[in-house]
């Protein structure tokens, strides 16, 4: 793979933005990214938009044509959809286009504007479309319930505890309290998490990421031209993706994600690293159990011990490995199709020592892991400062 650099980033704060439209969100993110890269919009060769479900959330498809031109970017545009991994997948497609020689420079935008749907049942159904429509959603599954099935299986198989899962939420809220762009900037206690409202037993409200609005944009360019836009580009050293059956019940394991393992194998091999080389990582903690399983699947701890690893503080900011310094999906927020791009932006700031109070001290190699659905899709990217 030809090496690719991230030369500019921009995002909105994440929140419930009832008075801001989808195109206003993307315009804010794109404008900031263009400014950040100090680039003439005419130099952008192609636009890639990651979004999961604007058709249901906003009665709006054809996002590529809406988003680019509204911000004065008239490059050919396309939307990429891979459920909650739409952002990460759009980034990969943009990398492929640059590698194939179609463009030198690409704009990648992730967006989800979820609060146009007011009824929580409608939101639950919209998110449920990332599962198997006929054989999961159609018989009463919801996303919290699918992750509850995973969490229950993990507790049964490995003896993991509710306290271990709750520690993920507490840690991510602590990190998010230091992130000015996060939706929830409040520290929470174990008691708050473990006594919160039941959503899909054993998953409680504070095991779940929120419903969020947000847009994030990055500008990619081939390595050779990167210094033209910034003195401090960051480089994508490896990239991998994995795909598995959309339905949880069709997969080999209920307690491990093959898509994560496959994505990691490809990305780590390309970047010539092992998990031990990773200083910090943004993982897809849509539910606390997702972070626990990811820690195991990526080899940061023994299989079945991800919860204990978290409860013991090994994943806290500047401990053994800083996991979700941004606050993760739980605290930073989870505008589903934008999440994969927000993750990249966190890595960008961390690698450039721009992350303020949540700055990690060891910051040579940062990784993103973006899951789609209940684990059917996964995109993993490896970043560093050095070309």
């Amino acid at each position, binding site marked *: 793979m030809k090496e690719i650099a991230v030369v500019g980033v921009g995002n909105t704060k994440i929140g419930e933005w009832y008075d801001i439209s989808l195109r206003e969100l993307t315009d804010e993110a794109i404008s900031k990214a263009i400014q950040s890269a100090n680039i003439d919009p005419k130099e952008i060769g192609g636009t890639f938009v990651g979004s999961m479900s604007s058709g249901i959330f906003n009665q709006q498809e054809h996002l590529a044509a809406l988003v680019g031109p509204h911000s004065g970017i008239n490059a050919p545009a396309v939307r990429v959809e891979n459920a909650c991994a739409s952002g990460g997948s759009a980034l990969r497609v943009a990398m492929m286009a640059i590698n194939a020689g179609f463009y030198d420079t690409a704009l990648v935008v992730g967006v989800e504007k979820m609060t146009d749907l007011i009824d*929580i*049942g*409608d939101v*639950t*159904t919209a998110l*449920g479309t990332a599962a*198997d429509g*006929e*054989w*999961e*959603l*159609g*018989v*009463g*599954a*919801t996303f*919290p*319930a699918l992750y*509850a*099935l*995973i969490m*229950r*299986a993990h507790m*049964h198989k490995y003896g993991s505890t509710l306290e271990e899962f709750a520690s993920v939420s507490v840690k991510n809220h602590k990190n998010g309290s230091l992130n000015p762009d996060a939706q929830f900037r409040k520290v929470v206690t174990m008691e708050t998490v473990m006594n919160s*409202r*039941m*959503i*899909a*037993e*054993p*998953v409680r409200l504070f095991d779940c990421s929120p419903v969020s609005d947000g847009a994030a944009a990055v500008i990619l360019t081939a390595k050779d031209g990167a210094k033209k836009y910034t003195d401090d580009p960051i480089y994508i050293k490896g990239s991998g993706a994995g795909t598995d059956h959309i*339905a*949880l*019940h*069709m997969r080999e394991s*209920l307690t491990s994600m093959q898509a994560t393992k496959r994505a990691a194998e490809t990305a780590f091999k390309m970047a010539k690293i092992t998990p031990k080389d990773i200083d910090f990582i943004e993982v897809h903690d849509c539910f606390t159990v997702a972070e626990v399983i990811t820690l195991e699947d990526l080899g940061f701890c023994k299989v079945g011990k991800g919860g204990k690893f978290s409860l013991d503080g090994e994943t806290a900011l500047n401990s053994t490995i800083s996991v979700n310094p941004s606050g993760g999906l739980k605290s930073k927020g989870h505008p589903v199709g934008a999440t994969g791009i927000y993750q990249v932006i966190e890595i960008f700031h961390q690698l450039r020592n721009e992350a303020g109070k949540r700055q990690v001290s060891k910051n040579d190699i940062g990784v993103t892991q973006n899951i789609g659905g209940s684990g059917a899709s996964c995109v993993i990217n490896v970043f560093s400062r050095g070309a």
Partner: protein
Amino acid sequence: MSVPRTWRNRRALYSLEGSKCQKCGKYYFPGRTRCLDCNTSGLENHNFSGTGKVATYSWVYTPPKGFNNRIPYCLAIVELDEGPKLTTQLVAVEEGDVEIGMPVEFSFRKISSEGDEGVITYGFKFRPKNYPNHLKKK
């Protein structure tokens, strides 16, 4: 739910019809025409026995549209005796009754409805095996 979708899936929903590979013996639910293991085409229909065991479960408090007539309800993955797993609801159980490994059996039930006057979808749910004599003696 979409009427055409329910109609075309009626055999699977109403009687657990799936398929079986005549060559390697692997079972599929829902049914399919080509075996993913040995690549044999033209798989034959197979009606599952309808018994299995609970692989994992959850009690759902926040349902999607059309599923709010009993909150919480028990969602589970059931592993059929023939091998395949499916996602389903467990009925005739209360919170505390269900455990992983529990034997269950097919039960024909109402699945969802579109409001008071809309279409009702029927299909499979699972109940404790040997219902109604399944409850442990208090």
